[in-house]
């Protein structure tokens, strides 16, 4: 194909957004790591790479990510297949319940886990009650096996990402392709492995690569276990020091490793990505399971849901406790913390007056919706460019889009602070703005939305790319042939056709934005603009109140309720029930 001006323009828009909201803000990281006044330098990269601590850090991050991705896949794939292709009692309910890990707020999620797994936690109390351990035999589960603990938690937290993508992918598979395989004598297992799985590979890859990078660069979970090996923790340990070139070099190396790993994985999976000739000409048949199989399915869903919902249950109980120390369940219940969290007890010591808990939930909803809108538009655009256009450097762009996943939130947030305030000042000076909309002290909204959108963009892009890959071009050509322009074709044909994938992406972006921490803590500086995570953090870190953690948990419970309600409402708006939105 001849060099195509339009393609380059499309690419330019994606590159410009990434440049503006990602590379420009973190430019100082690259500058500090790779540049001195005498010219470019690899001194710090060299130092970082020559350290065995760093190498061990990368090794452990890779092990962590590989095993966590494998574990999350083993959880998500069977569940997704059962949900998409079979009928069993309680399927709808389970389909929704399986997404609960997506709505566990930070901080209080950790409180919940500590309440279960700590030395005076519920698990030890239960074991002591059963006589398994003596009074002095309390196990500190966080120290029992940090690596295994991190992997288990990550897998339990991240499997919905694979699950959502794969369910969306299965909805797009033309069942006649599977029927064809059955007709030539392939058994169900062979059909699954040789036909169905290759067809949903783009969707699986979309989820798995995100889980992999997420697990590899995750900070919160390893810190909870004091597992300090992974490279992300090493970066975090240094990032607070003033302009530390070595920390920045570590970030640069991490970004390079993630980009290379991504390109490698894409090369492996990409060779096998197939576009179906058309989307399903009839809906996939949902096979009714036999009694035994249905029981197994219910058991599987039930078990995963139960384990996944444990921290939530602990958070709910914690928010209702009067005292909960060394017992299986709280020794007494009260609604006082919820009253405080909802502002019904205005002088409750745990909540400083500048904090407005309920409006901050609403703030988060608005910001997250903004992030969903921005990232979806960009994701459709990027997916279109990446899948439908051929141009030199396509792989590079594809990898660059994934990088926001790997950049520590702190680094990006500080980048925003450093880079954009001046712009806003200039616009105010020029009389364009009455207020600096790019400065957290005057208005953090635009920065927060941009930060959420950028950090969660890879989730949306992967979903969109999978959709484009699975949707036959001829459906778009058919629209062009009856005279619809590219924009209308995209809007009326392509986007509706990949709606299942986009919905999966939007869901993830929304939930993960609602629960975002580092950008929220740094970019919101005026309490009037607080996202709920910052309000929770402020109440949680209140050193003056007996009840700070419990009130924070109560607010966390309400954040979960709102988030769940928002997800249900979003899917209801689309006319389908939660979990069933992925049926074409």
């Amino acid at each position, binding site marked *: 194909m001849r060099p195509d001006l339009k393609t380059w323009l499309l690419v330019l828009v994606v590159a410009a957004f990434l440049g503006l909201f990602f590379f420009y803000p973190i430019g100082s990281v690259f500058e500090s790591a790779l540049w001195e006044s005498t010219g470019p330098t690899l001194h710090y990269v060299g*130092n970082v790479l020559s350290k065995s601590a760093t190498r061990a850090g990368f090794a452990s991050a890779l092990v962590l990510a590989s095993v966590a991705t494998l574990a999350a896949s083993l959880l998500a794939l069977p569940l997704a297949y059962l949900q998409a292709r079979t009928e069993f009692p309680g399927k709808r309910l389970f389909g929704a319940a399986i997404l609960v890990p997506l709505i566990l707020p930070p901080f209080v999620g950790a409180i919940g886990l500590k309440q279960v797994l700590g030395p005076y936690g519920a698990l030890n109390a239960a074991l002591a009650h059963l006589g398994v351990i003596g009074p002095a035999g309390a196990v500190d589960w966080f*120290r029992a096996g940090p690596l295994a603990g991190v992997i288990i938690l990550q897998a339990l937290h991240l499997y919905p990402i694979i699950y959502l993508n794969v369910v969306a992918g299965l909805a797009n598979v033309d069942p006649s392709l599977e029927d064809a395989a059955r007709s030539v004598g392939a058994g169900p297992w062979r059909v699954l492995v040789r036909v169905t799985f290759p067809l949903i590979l783009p969707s699986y890859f979309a989820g798995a690569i995100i889980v992999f990078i997420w697990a590899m660069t995750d900070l919160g979970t390893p*810190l909870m276990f004091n597992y300090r090996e992974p490279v992300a923790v090493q970066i975090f*340990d240094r990032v*607070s020091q003033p302009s530390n070139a070595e920390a920045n070099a570590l970030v640069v190396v991490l970004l390079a490793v993630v980009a290379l790993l991504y390109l490698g994985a894409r090369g492996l999976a990409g060779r096998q990505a197939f576009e179906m000739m058309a989307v399903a000409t009839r809906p996939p048949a949902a096979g009714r399971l036999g009694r035994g199989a249905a029981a197994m399915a219910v058991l599987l869903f039930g078990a995963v849901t139960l384990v996944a919902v444990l921290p939530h249950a602990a958070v709910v109980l914690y928010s209702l406790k009067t005292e909960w120390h060394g017992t299986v369940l709280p020794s007494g219940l009260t609604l006082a913390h919820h009253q405080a969290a909802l502002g019904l007890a205005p*002088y409750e010591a745990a909540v400083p007056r500048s904090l407005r808990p309920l409006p901050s939930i609403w703030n988060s909803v608005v910001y997250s919706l903004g992030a969903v809108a921005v990232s979806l538009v960009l994701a459709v655009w990027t997916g279109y460019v990446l899948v439908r256009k051929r141009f030199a450097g396509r792989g590079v762009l594809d990898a660059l889009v994934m990088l926001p996943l790997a950049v520590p939130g702190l680094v990006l947030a500080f980048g925003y602070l450093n880079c954009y305030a001046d712009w806003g000042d200039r616009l105010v000076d020029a009389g364009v703005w009455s207020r600096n909309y790019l400065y957290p002290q005057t208005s953090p909204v635009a920065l927060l939305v941009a930060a959420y959108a950028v950090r969660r963009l890879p989730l949306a892009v992967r979903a969109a790319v999978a959709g484009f890959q699975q949707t036959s071009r001829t459906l778009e050509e058919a629209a062009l042939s009856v005279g619809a322009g590219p924009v209308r074709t995209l809007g009326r044909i392509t986007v509706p056709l990949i709606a299942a994938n986009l919905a999966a992406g939007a869901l993830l972006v929304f939930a993960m934005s609602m629960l975002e921490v580092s950008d929220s803590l*740094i970019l919101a500086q005026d309490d009037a*603009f607080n996202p709920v995570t910052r309000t929770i953090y402020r109440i949680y870190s209140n050193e003056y109140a*007996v009840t700070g953690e419990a009130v924070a948990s109560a607010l966390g419970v309400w954040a979960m309720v709102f988030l769940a309600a928002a997800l249900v409402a979003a899917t209801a708006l689309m006319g389908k029930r939660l979990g069933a939105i992925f049926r074409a």
Partner: protein
Amino acid sequence: MRTAAAVATLALAGLAGCGGGAQPSADTDTLVIFSPHSDEIRQEFTEAFQAWHRERTGREAEVSWPDIGGGGTQILKRLQDKFRAGRYDVDLVFGGGPIVEQMKGLGMLQAVRLPPDVMSAVPRAAAGQPLYDPDGWWYGAAISTFGLIYNNAVIRDKGLPPVRDWETLADPNYLGCVGAGDPAKSVSVLKAYEIILQAYGYERGMGILVRMGANAREFYATAGEVPRNCAQGFVAAGPCIDFYAFRQMLAEGGGNLGFLAPPGLTVVTCDPIAVLKGAPHRDAAEQFVEFVMRPEGQRLWMLPAGSPGGPRQYALQRLAVLPAVYDEAAARGAPARVNPLAAPPADFYDAAKEIARQTVLADYLRVALVENHAGLTKAWQKIIAGGLPAAGAAELVRPLVSEEEMLRLGREVWAPLLAPDDAPPEKKAELKRQEEQRQRLRSDTETRWSEALRKRYETLAK
């Protein structure tokens, strides 16, 4: 595609337009304060200052406390970034411990003269520590001591020896039972470690710190996590600043928690307030400093919540710098606190040493304790299992650099070179090059340390 872009722009613009934020009017003074102080302190001081200011000047005051996501270190970094970019939009630094001395050295402060009637009530020093800068660069707004918080329930359940002094943290019985702050993340945490170094002398102090690190269950990013985790029973004890402990004890209420300031082995420090160079609202900033140093401000630290002249909502549990306030607080029924103003001077403490090696010590301890924590713990476990052979225990904690070398590195390599704004460009460029050379040296030294210690811990764990 054009439609899509328009939608995105509209979405951003629309969102940017919504939301609150009152415009300051002409008869309102605005203050921007960088502070690690908690919401409660911010709220009480804001409200009390507004009332005092209104009464005195008839003008309203708005106080904004931007969140910088960290303590003194983070504040210094943020301000350095701002000053480098030529942004002077912050008026005051309130809290953050010893960073003011550093900022004074870097020319980031603005001296303030307070009226003699205010200053006459403030003691010159507490336990030998100066309470304000003689030239008015900074003022000590509150004082605090360092010690250990401990949980008697955990000590009892695990059969641990009782807490005596700092060395308890290095006791092999406390393996996995110590909660410690990350020295590179929190200035107050680092201060506690510096006190240990000076109280016991460099070599012995370093031994305590390394074994404490080996005992640590985990390292926390903020100093406040130590008392919290201690209260929850995750750890038995940990170094802690007095008011964190007081608050946690007040909150916990059950009597399991205790705080110990090892007599003769700790110091009093003050939490300063200072006006920043280029402060956009300098007059109001000076008013605020005066308010904080007057009895009206000082009472907020110690009086019970809701008492006349005291804080409205929160008992702040901090120690004032005015001796009179201690009596007032006791008279109003606040929990009795030892008055550090009356304590004998801690003659072992050399503040110059602290300032000289602050950053290099943070990096050394980060490498020795945090970065290689898994290896350190394994080596320590092995030594304990081997019956604590003297050679192994000594080898584990032997510092890689002598005290003199550490101080030299602090002064000549770790101290950042920041050119004054008015320096000529060539001078700035020269300083920048020198700073880059220092940075290289820092990075190379750290790399060497990390390799050496990792190898040492591995050998000892075999």
